[in-house]
């Protein structure tokens, strides 16, 4: 060894990059993320345990003679609809199909977008051209309308199959994520560490999975949440329009029957308001989560919290707002 300098001791490194794993850092999650995660988790639990918690089954009716929906009462917390089904139970039961299909759609869409986007970005050439055209076609065509035309004549048996419906819904939403992933893959492909991996002889497949994908995870996560929100919107729309009517009911079908029976004009709020609010809340919860992830990816766009009034904006300097007392790393000397 001919090095004339003393062996370098462990000294502090450069500031953390956003993609670095939080190995020995306590991450301070902004309030947005916590609220969003909380809401989402709440509804997921309802989706899982709903049918057990529902006081009545879907077929139960209060009585068979009354044709007018009843307002909330002690026995029916959310009242009844015009066929005297318990609306509280219907809400709980509907949660499962609504959320299940939304998440299935999100999962399928994410898998599709990763496969198409990353391959297209990394491989390039003719494959990229062809895949890009396909992606752009899916982007340009109004997915929901096509879905409506396709799904309407499906036999009822298929309409209960969450996987089938989820997959079809995913077909209308994967293109957005694929585009974003392709763009990011193109950037990452020329990064030095990818070049180094090729220099030591790593195979293409290994590079894509182990070098590029880990750095794409924030985008993949954001894309997943987006497709879940979108999938829910599409599925609820399909139910609302009467294109799909699952046997177990969903929030969308509740809205559909409500509007068809004139509940809005009759001011029977207990019928149409709860499903609408639930849909909105799930959407908000997921969106907050998504927004939080967005801020983690790009620290510059965080909005400042009210406590830090001393962060004044100056032209030419973009303050990166870091929450105070959040980074504790053992053994690091700066």
């Amino acid at each position, binding site marked *: 060894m001919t090095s004339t300098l003393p062996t370098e001791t462990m000294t502090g490194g450069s500031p953390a990059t956003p993609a670095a794993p939080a190995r020995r850092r306590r991450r301070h999650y902004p309030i947005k993320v916590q609220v969003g995660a909380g809401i989402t988790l709440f509804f997921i639990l309802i989706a899982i345990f709903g049918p057990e918690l529902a006081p009545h089954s879907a077929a139960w009716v209060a009585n068979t003679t009354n044709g007018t929906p009843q307002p909330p009462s002690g026995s029916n917390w959310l009242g009844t609809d015009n066929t005297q089904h318990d609306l509280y139970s219907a809400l709980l039961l509907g949660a499962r199909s609504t959320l299940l299909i939304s998440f299935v759609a999100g999962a399928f869409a994410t898998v599709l977008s990763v496969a198409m986007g990353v391959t297209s970005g990394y491989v390039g050439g003719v494959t990229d051209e062809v895949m890009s055209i396909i992606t752009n076609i899916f982007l340009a065509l109004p997915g929901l309308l096509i879905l409506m035309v396709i799904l309407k004549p499906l036999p009822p048996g298929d309409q209960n199959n969450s996987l089938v419906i989820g997959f079809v819904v995913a077909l209308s939403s994967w293109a957005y994520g694929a585009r974003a992933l392709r763009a990011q893959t193109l950037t990452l492909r020329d990064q030095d560490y990818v070049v180094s991996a090729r220099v030591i002889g790593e195979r293409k497949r290994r590079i894509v999975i182990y070098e590029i994908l880990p750095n794409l995870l924030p985008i993949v996560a954001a894309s997943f949440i987006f497709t879940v929100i979108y999938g829910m919107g599409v599925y609820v729309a399909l139910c609302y329009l*009467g294109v799909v009517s699952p046997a177990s009911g969903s929030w969308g079908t509740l809205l559909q029957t409500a509007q068809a029976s004139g509940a809005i004009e009759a001011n029977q709020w207990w019928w149409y308001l709860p499903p609408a609010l639930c849909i909105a809340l799930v959407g908000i919860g997921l969106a907050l989560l998504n927004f939080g992830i967005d801020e983690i990816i790009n620290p510059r766009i965080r909005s400042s919290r009210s406590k830090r009034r001393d962060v004044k904006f100056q032209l030419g300097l973009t303050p990166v707002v870091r929450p105070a007392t959040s980074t504790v790393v053992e053994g690091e000397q700066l």
Partner: protein
Amino acid sequence: MPLLIRRIGFYLIAAYAAITLDFFIPRMLPGNALSAILTQMRGVVTPAQLASMAAEYGADDKQSLLSQYFTYVGHTLSGNFGLSLSHQETPVSTVLGGDLPWTIGLIGSATVVAFLLGTLIGIMAGWRRGGLLDAIVPVSTFFQAIPYFVLGLLLLIIFGSDLAWFPIGGGYDTTNRYVTYVQGWNWPYMSSVLQHLVLPGTTVVLASIAGWIVGMRNMMITTMDEDYVLVAAAKGLSRFRVIGIAARNAILPTISNFTLSISLVVTGAVLVEVVFDYPGIGNEMFNAITAADYPLLQGILLVVTFAVLIANFLADLAYVVLDPRSRREA
């Protein structure tokens, strides 16, 4: 310019794909499509209708699939979408012709408002980081996360039903017993139209404005970090002009983001029409689905698809005009 030509080429391919898809949809239906449609139809079918439907849906064995395809493409390109089943044999194109102005009016005005308001708010929010305007971001995300028509429903409930500030349906007042509105450019009619436009229009604006605001804000923040903005300020330009310089650059990616969301906006607006019983294409589609009026459905699908493609093209055009870099070859 080569960029535009490539885009046009792409749109032609997409349009072609849409037409082909439309052709195959009825033929992909499980079972015998024709009998399925017939059983879903209400009313009596005349022999003429039967024959035309048979030819339309491939039950007619006299033509091969390929020649059916070319006939179909030919019909589509000349605007012949067949006859609407639920409108007593009115040509689909006539039916759509009546609906299109309403939908375009709704989407067009809402998009313009959302664009103007959204970018302005976004610029301000991006410029004055911190403080009140930054709270806009979660609020607009709130609106963006709710499906379009649920938002419409909520607005309808609150403002139309409970508060009765605005009418709860229709394109203009058809229920007024005292006045009969005549369609045309007269004030009573137009004011009624405007009154009925408020709620559905607001829904579309609220649901889409978030995209403009957040997109513009984020781009402003990234842009203002650039050196040329610092130079502009250092040169002593008024704050207004510095903002203008930054905004002009920040708006470009926002416009290209808009092209991504056009099909979403159109789809959403279409659903909003159903909620508000607005006499546009969306409502027509809803009725067509219920009545299983396939020729009408196919026609709507094509019209909406072409509209989206045209809108995309216009946005691309705007981008090329605004960004001198894209006009030069790379």
